[in-house]
């Protein structure tokens, strides 16, 4: 009986396993699979806050950006200590989490006490604000960013550095996605899940029922931010070996996260995975046949989903499998 709580994770992990096997097995598929996993991971991290609380964080990409900076700074400052070896990567990850976490605490503590509209307003400025802080105060490389490929070679040796960028970065994203899925499951089924459900449905009633809504919103917000930081550190940092403010603070990544989660089904476990796969494949396909048109196609899709189809693919799926044998697996 106890174990049955974890059944819903099975389809998710099967999905990830399949992606991994395809990537390893079929030549030339690695990059595409890596991109799909990236979108699933981003979707899951974003879903933990957006899907579970119903609040929109328009500045989401800033957490990914801080993640890259964390990794970049770690490599930049510690690369001479090559005796640390892969410890530098660990430092980078820790730094990524600390930075993303701090920003989320600051923004969250100020903005989460207020309602959804004010919160959205507060987060609009997070990208802009932080990016211009970096450029304006000329910290962390200012508007030129940081390029650390050479420093990686110095720190880890050419071969290792190469493997980190091409193999381990992507595998880490897969691992992060798997962890995010587990956390999501815990958030849905556990006490936190009840609190978040209540505050999402009716914040006023939730308060009267004894729920400290600000605390729970903050927990979801910070968790989502920490995961985003890790993803940024790996998928952008280690993999691309440079960070450039206009790119990493680009709001289109937030748009993508919104599309992925809403398309798949906000607040569900399987939703971001499905959304990530669908979106990733659609984008890949579009880039091939209609480059430059992605936003123009996806923005109206957001509207259509929001107006006509708010529960997303998995939302509809959940309703269909009610009462069937599949029900415990689809969450």
């Amino acid at each position, binding site marked *: 009986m106890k174990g049955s709580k974890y059944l819903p994770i099975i389809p998710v992990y099967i999905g990830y396993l399949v992606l991994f096997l395809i990537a390893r097995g079929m030549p030339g598929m690695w990059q595409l699979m890596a991109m799909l996993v990236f979108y699933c991971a981003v979707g899951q991290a974003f879903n933990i806050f957006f899907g579970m609380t119903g609040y929109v964080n328009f500045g989401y990409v800033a957490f990914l950006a801080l993640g890259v900076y964390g990794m970049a700074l770690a490599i930049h400052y510690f690369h001479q200590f090559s005796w640390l070896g892969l410890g530098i990567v660990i430092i980078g990850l820790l730094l990524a989490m600390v930075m993303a976490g701090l920003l989320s605490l600051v923004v969250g503590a100020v903005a989460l006490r207020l309602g959804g509209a004010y919160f959205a307003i507060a987060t609009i400025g997070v990208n802009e604000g932080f990016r211009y802080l970096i450029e304006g105060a000329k910290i962390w490389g200012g508007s030129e960013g940081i390029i650390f490929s050479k420093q990686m070679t110095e720190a880890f040796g050419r071969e290792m550095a190469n493997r980190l960028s091409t193999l381990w970065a992507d595998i880490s994203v897969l691992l992060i996605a798997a962890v995010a899925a587990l956390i999501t499951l815990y958030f849905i089924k556990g006490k936190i899940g009840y609190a978040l459900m209540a505050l999402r449905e009716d914040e006023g*009633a939730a308060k009267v029922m004894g729920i400290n809504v600000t605390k729970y919103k903050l927990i979801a917000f910070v968790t989502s931010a920490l995961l985003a930081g890790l993803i940024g550190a790996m998928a952008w940092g280690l993999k691309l070996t440079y960070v450039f403010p206009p790119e990493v603070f680009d709001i289109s990544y937030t748009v993508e996260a919104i599309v992925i989660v809403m398309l798949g089904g906000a607040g569900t476990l399987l939703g971001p995975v499905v959304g990530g796969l669908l979106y990733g494949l659609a984008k890949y396909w579009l880039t091939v046949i209609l480059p430059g048109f992605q936003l123009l196609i996806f923005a109206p899709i957001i509207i259509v989903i929001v107006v006509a189809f708010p529960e997303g693919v998995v939302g509809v799926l959940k309703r269909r499998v009610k009462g069937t044998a599949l029900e415990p697996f689809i969450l």
Partner: protein
Amino acid sequence: MALLRLEKVTKRFGGLVAVNEVDLHIEAGESIGIVGPNGSGKTTLYNVISGVYTPEEGRVFFEEQEITFLPPYRRAHLGLGRTFQISRPFGSATVRENVAVGALFGTLHGRIGVDEALKLADRYIELVGLSELKDKVAGSLTPVEKKLMEVARALAMRPKLLLMDEAMAGMHPKDIDRLVGLLKEIKEEEKIAMVAMVEHIMRAVVGFAERVVVMHFGRKLVDAPTAEALKDPKVVEVYLGCPLEEK
């Protein structure tokens, strides 16, 4: 020590004084009825007690601890439960999950896990007679079923004081009698839960309340044992009628 004590509580909205210098005390285990015409300030009074509003003047005490400025969720932990005039179920969750929320975050918060909470929820769902519906999505319930669910949800909080706002509105007299009987039962069993209501429906008030508080234009008009209060000429005048016949 009074369970709940209000001291000269005044709540204003701009120029409108909704609650005007109200003193109130409720002892543990009492059943009180709060009545009054529409706009007399009953629901506002409730909102001040449960923490949704902060009064401009006056103080609120729970077990002699001042809670005037305490946020609603903390009051719930202390033992204040409430239902709403217009049902506020958590619409996309099941009845069971709804009631479990009460169990998880009421007076037992921090000491109860999800599985236990669900079991507790089942108990209260059965108590109000909704067992067949417990896995139904709350949003699909009828208004009466929603009200019953709210009662179960508030009870699952194991409160010391239960504020019920128009719980009986729209109910068939048979259902009202049943609910009143239920509440009396619960009061006896749980001992701790004290139930106060805000009702237009005299049938419920007379059946249930030992003491009645009558509100009028934000002021407390009368605060006396039920029979006495309903015969009070001031009350009769306010309700524009003749003295209530015993049913």
